[in-house]
């Protein structure tokens, strides 16, 4: 566990020093600010903003993973007695933390810029929907890691952004919150008061998202065990 925490700290430091983390957090703050631009569709705008911000954040993580691999730093870590599974766990922890902090920033940004007028009628709706949305972070970071393991930095970033944005935007625009689908937390965020009970739906959405994340990470483990680092 100490090794994974060290690796996650290294990844976050790398993201921070390369301004990738800052860029991602700005994307999340901007996503939250969308509520102020169109009050009539504030929540849908917020969900779309968050979906795009998550795609940008995941893309930046994919670029960082691919850069670590191409530069040989991932191999350097493996040559320091770091099992490949721990390497993946470090990336998962760092990337998910960055996305979850980004989501919190989006929520705060929405509340500050949209004010109480945009608050849903159900008090728990916003935190529940945000938490359910955050549960999609491991799956998004898993996609980013897979792309980073097989592609060069720029293609990995582009592919991750397209895939994650396509998936999450489709959830916001096409999937009702009552449907159990990976990333359905964002559908709940798009219409937080429309379906009740919000908390139950959020829990179900989080569970499905985490299960999807587990499948993606299983695939990432298989790829990492064979990859050149």
């Amino acid at each position, binding site marked *: 566990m100490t*090794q994974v925490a*060290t690796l996650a700290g*290294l990844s976050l*430091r*790398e993201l921070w*020093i390369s301004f990738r983390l800052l860029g991602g957090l700005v994307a999340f703050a901007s996503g939250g600010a969308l509520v102020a631009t169109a009050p009539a569709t504030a929540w849908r705008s917020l969900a779309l903003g968050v979906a795009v911000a998550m795609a940008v954040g995941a893309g930046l993580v994919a670029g960082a993973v691919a850069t670590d691999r191409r*530069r*040989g*730093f*991932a*191999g*350097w*870590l*493996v*040559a*320091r*007695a*770091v*099992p*490949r599974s*721990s390497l993946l766990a470090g990336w998962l922890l760092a990337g998910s933390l960055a996305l979850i902090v980004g989501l919190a920033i989006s929520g705060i940004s929405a509340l500050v810029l949209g004010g109480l007028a945009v608050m849903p009628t159900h008090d728990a709706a916003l935190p529940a929907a945000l938490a359910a949305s955050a549960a999609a972070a491991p799956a998004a970071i898993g996609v980013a890691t897979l792309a980073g393991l097989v592609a060069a930095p720029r293609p990995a970033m582009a592919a991750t952004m397209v895939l994650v944005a396509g998936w999450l935007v489709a959830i916001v625009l096409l999937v009702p919150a009552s449907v159990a689908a990976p990333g359905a937390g964002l559908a709940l965020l798009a219409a937080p008061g429309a379906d009740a009970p919000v908390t139950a739906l959020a829990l179900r959405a989080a569970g499905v998202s985490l299960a999807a994340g587990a499948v993606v990470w299983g695939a990432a483990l298989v790829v990492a065990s*064979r*990859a*050149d*680092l």
Partner: protein
Amino acid sequence: MSTPEALWASGTLRHLRPSAIACRGLRRRAGGVTLLDGLNLIVPVGARLLVASRPSESATMLLRILGGVARAEQGTIHLAGLPISDDLPGGWARRVGYVPPTSALPGWMSGREALELSARLLGFDHAERPVRIERAMSGAGLATTPDLDRPLRRAATAHRELVALAAALVADPEILVLDEPLRALDPWDRWRILGALEPRATLVVASRTPAAEEGFAREVAFIGQGRVVVHAPVTELTRRGLPLTLGGLEQLAALGVERPSRATASPRDAGTRPEAR
């Protein structure tokens, strides 16, 4: 005196020449090119082996596989008779120190941070780390200068190479795998540092310019078409009046003085050195 110390002191190990590395049937393709095609190689404990190849990527790939950063598609590797697996934390990586041809460390990291990180990831406790780092720095000829605390991107290439070597020495590995090591150093410093590495460690060095390793390497293995076609003492070249170059090694292979590893030996035999023809 510990049992291994006593064995070394008595010269028993040098006499028996057990294998440090035994590769059998290694096969690997990359970019549509077959780099290793059923490669067999046995390296005895304490060897100073130079590996050269055509194409040069074959030697690099072999070293990357030995270092654990690349995978062979087929074949087995034994270290001191035991199959390797990176599923054992601290196992392989503590026994093999791999140094890639270019510094893989992030530019924002200082040399001191890199060494500290290396010791921490290798699992040494807080009290043991400074001792390990000090010893590794000494082994790599890395002095405690202000450069050590500067980001590596601002340091000279030679300093980055010494940091990479010191980071590999932190675990005091029994096998050192060096791909084009210390190219940025002047030849005398390079020879002095490589020559002063732990004499009991087995050294495998890959080089695109074999002549640069003259005086350091005692044995040479030449990989052609994915297989070891020459594995002989460096003196074999001298004896035949051939230079220690890729061309010289190819001529040696053509003369049929190959001393290959025993391809048919079972892994149980991995503890012995192949006989010369």
